């Protein structure tokens, strides 16, 4: 059974995922863009895999394409998990 995502738990899992794919920990915050973190589409697929593993939320296609910031993905995960 997957855990339901809270804003806090989603932020924690996504931050850890970003660090895992090589983003600078000090630069990660809600307003940081993926571009500024040098996070590309391949990295986002890995983040999506981590999120799905943790919360059972599937991020696909259009969901992911419109994401620009760390906050965007946290909000989306929380919304889809609700």
């Amino acid at each position, binding site marked *: 059974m997957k855990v339901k995502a809270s804003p806090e738990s989603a932020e924690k899992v996504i931050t850890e995922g970003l660090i895992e*794919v*090589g*983003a600078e920990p000090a630069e990660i915050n809600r307003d940081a863009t993926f571009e500024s973190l*040098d996070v590309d589409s*391949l990295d986002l*697929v*890995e983040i999506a*895999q981590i999120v*799905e*593993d943790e919360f059972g939320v599937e991020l696909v296609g259009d969901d992911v394409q419109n994401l620009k910031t760390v906050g965007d993905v946290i909000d989306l995960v929380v919304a889809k998990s609700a």
Partner: protein
Amino acid sequence: MSERVVVTGTGAVTPLGVGGATLLDRWCEGATGIEGGVAACRDFDPLDFLSRKEARRADRFTQLAIAAAEEAIAEAGWGEGLPYPPERIGCVIGTGIGGIGSLESQGQVLREKGAKAVSPLAVPLMMGNAGAAAVAMRYGLKGESFGVVSACAAGANAIGTAVRLVRSGQVDAVLTGGSESAMTGIAMAAFASMGATSPTGISRPFDARRDGFVMGEGAGVLVIESAAAAERRGARGVGEILGYGATCDAHHLTAPDPDGEGSARAIELALADAGVTAGQLDYVNAHGTSTPLNDRSETEALKRALGTRAGEIPVSSTKSVIGHLMGAAGAVEAVATIKSLGRAVAPPTVGWEQAEEGLDLDYVPDGPRPLATIGGVALDGAPDAARSSRIAISNSFGFGGHNAVLCLAAT
């Protein structure tokens, strides 16, 4: 007369350490990079060359290629920027297997967690052209770029292909070489299963007791440039690639032609391409894998191609100290050969003790030996005033019958 191709930089990461000079120094000391039946690059830390992010996006064979390229670029004096338009610089890097470590670990993910858990990085990690792609991207090389796959001949085939690319006039320079890191569960088991690797874990090329090769990992990269372009930018070459010959045995899935016909023809083609006679050769860097079949057929090939001269030239195998680097072997051995010629030394076949009937060449068993032709006089006694450099061939042969021979020179 086709365009001359000079080598302006070399780099190598091997089981004897990081750096081409380290390889030759330690080889001549008789040191070995083989431990526990394998030859790993224990001194290599990818984070010395790559960011954490870059490192996780590159299989170890690609990481090794980048480290070797870094050294070659620095020696060529390209550290401050490319000397030619990026569109006129190519990148050709060979490998035997590519990112098999990544393939195996992702295979495990697939079996344990299912298809959706397979990494989006799996393809760029395991593809055989990853080394060429990564080196091209790192330095912004925008000319022709690809991987070369011909098993244990890949490194030499890559360099030969790069030479032809420069001679064609399409590019001014190419970063070229080979890279391999395949000491993984499946690869080790598979080579053992076919009886190719040494059950005793000892690499002793040309010795009567040899019983297979020892698997190694590493990378070698050379910066090659058209001699005219290098001269215009005032670059001092460290060597020259005089010629290249490549053939196929078309004989057996894995075994070499016992007569050495295909490999002899590759040697003859390389010499003809170089405009060099057997009498002018100072040294042979053998493929010398330590397998019963290769070392016998290679000896036959040398006799067939070089005639009586075969018995007079020092012949040694780098694999005696670093094992078999497979797709990287030809490139690492080209680096070692150029450095050997530059220092006028024939490094030894370390560990050679027992002769076998028919394996009767001079395998340099007793430690490094000064090359005899310093001053440009060939051993056959003919004065060769025009020649100030020393000349060698470096042999590479791969499963599938691929034979690639480079004729190299250094002053």
